[in-house]
């Protein structure tokens, strides 16, 4: 029988979301091959308002299930509830609204944002207990806040000191500028935490240009192929990376297909680990074909 799954994800506006788009499309092809009657519609939206519109448009096309990775969860709750209210199967990926219960969704596949910060924080606390750290944040939206909170929790009570935090907008160029200024401002920096591999690219260039040797290492996040490669190759500046895989959207899509076809009870919450990628396990997470 024919079924339709609508997939609503953020537009590819930086590396990680590009990965999301890549994996969503990849899994869509796989699922459609696997289930002949199945139609998977993947739609991208740049901001919450547009995404709310996209949900309406998907619904117009008569979907049976919705997989959504919200650009910003809270503003989308009402729109998601609309879909859910019509009896569709709803999976939310990665970003949870403040009231994340069964009235909103059936399935929640989560990357773990607080853990992403926490793992990074713990690594720093353990390996350089008295480190002076500068932080480059993403955009001022809740996921960013969750990562910061996780990080702060991890280093609370230790001698690790955060010198400064500024927004780098998950953008290489902005991260480059912010890092240049951090380097001017602080004569001694031990560690940079920039919670995103895209921004790490800019940070590394800024450090290289300044020829500063006091910085011991940089911790990014998400697991882009370039950074994983550096970890694999034993780059001293990038000793580890914290995984936050964009492929989680694929996981959610597979679980959703299973739910509507096989009536497998997949309700509930699936939280993916924020795995610490080290030189030893790096090759498991290296996908050279992905755009991210």
């Amino acid at each position, binding site marked *: 029988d024919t079924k339709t799954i609508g997939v609503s994800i953020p*537009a*590819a506006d930086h590396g990680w979301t590009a990965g999301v*788009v890549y994996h969503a499309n990849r899994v869509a092809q796989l699922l459609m091959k696997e289930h002949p009657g199945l139609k998977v*519609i*993947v*739609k*991208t939206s740049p*901001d*919450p*308002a*547009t995404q*709310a*519109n*996209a949900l*309406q*448009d*998907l619904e*117009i*096309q*008569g979907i049976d299930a919705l997989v959504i990775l919200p*650009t*910003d*969860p*809270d*503003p*989308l*709750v*009402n*729109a998601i509830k609309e879909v859910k209210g019509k009896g569709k199967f709803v999976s939310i990926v990665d970003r949870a609204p*403040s009231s994340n219960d069964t009235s909103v969704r059936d399935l929640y596949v989560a990357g773990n944002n607080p853990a992403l910060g926490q793992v990074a924080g713990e690594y720093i606390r353990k390996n350089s207990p008295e480190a002076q750290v500068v932080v480059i*944040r993403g*955009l*001022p*939206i*809740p996921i*960013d*806040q969750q990562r*910061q909170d996780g990080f702060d929790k991890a280093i609370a009570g230790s001698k690790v000191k955060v010198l400064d935090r500024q927004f780098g907008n998950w953008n290489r160029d902005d991260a480059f500028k912010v890092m240049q200024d951090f380097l001017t401002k602080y004569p001694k920096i031990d560690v940079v935490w920039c919670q995103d591999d895209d921004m790490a690219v800019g940070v590394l260039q800024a450090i290289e240009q300044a020829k500063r040797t006091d910085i011991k290492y940089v911790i990014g996040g998400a697991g882009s192929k370039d950074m994983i490669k550096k970890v694999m190759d034993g780059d001293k500046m990038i000793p580890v990376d914290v995984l936050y895989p964009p492929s989680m959207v694929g996981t959610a899509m597979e679980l959703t297909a299973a739910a509507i076809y096989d009536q497998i009870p997949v309700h509930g919450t699936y939280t993916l680990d924020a795995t610490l990628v080290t030189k030893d396990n790096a090759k498991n997470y290296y996908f050279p074909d992905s755009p991210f």
Partner: protein
Amino acid sequence: MSINSGSEGATIRRRSWRDVDLRAVAPFAALALLIVIGALVNPNFISITNLANVATRSAFIAIIAVGATFVISSGDLDLSVGSMVAFVASLMILFMNSGVIADPGLMLAAAMVLTVVIGSLCGLANGLITTVGRIEPFIATLGTMGIYRGLTTWLSQGGAITLRSSELQGLYRPAYFGSVFGLPVPILVILIVTAIAAFILYRTRYGRHVTAVGSSRDVARYSGIAVNRVRTIAFIIQGLCVAIAVLLYVPRLGSTSATTGILWELQAITAVVVGGTALKGGAGRVWGTICGAFILELVGNIMLLSNFISEYLIGAIQGSIIIIAMLVQRSLTRKA
């Protein structure tokens, strides 16, 4: 030494009417064309639900663009409207979350009044900086854009601001999702706002002054028009329209963040221009603006409903369609 013969006068009138009509009709023709394309792309497109959806969600941009029509007609420009939406909406939700008024109905009413006041004040600030400060509106409102956006970020401490009371939320929800005699509330609001705006622009002294100021500041001044006041009021009207858009926005998503309303200013300005108002200032076309806002929203909708466009290319196609819409408009106008 002529006095026009009657018949000559009549011919003339007919000609110029045709002329005026076609120019005003052009955006509507582009809209019609788009609807036809949409119907071809996906049969679901032409359903009442879908068209109502599109009209409803164009409400924010449409209402903001009505305000922008005033600002642009008077020869200015306001780039801050997008961040003003975020700022005003944040304050509205924060006020409702503050719980200073126990009764939900009263609270909602107070919050709505507050929103309108704040919107007007933001507009006033833009107007004063531009006129009294004598700064190019482009730069002045780029500055306030940064300010409103920054304040929103600060208010939300980088996160989201969400309406907490579910009672209030339930009470307020119909303002976006409800309908009156089958007509969704937002569409009703668009119509009312536009009708009032058209009345002000075409049928009042102030509206005439706006056009005069936009066509020539000097002529306006030598005609005894308080140019700066007219310009400032246009900015206040813009602020009011933003506030009205916020009144519809908050019940829809129930929450705001620092990214709310990003790039809406460009969309609003595009709607105004696609609707036939010239950016130079002068004649404003309010109904055209609404039509422009629908066109923008339709383009996105058609793109989403069509399944053969790579999602990576959506931006490119959207851009092309705007250009094509303008070309259609031009060619229609030229034929007139």
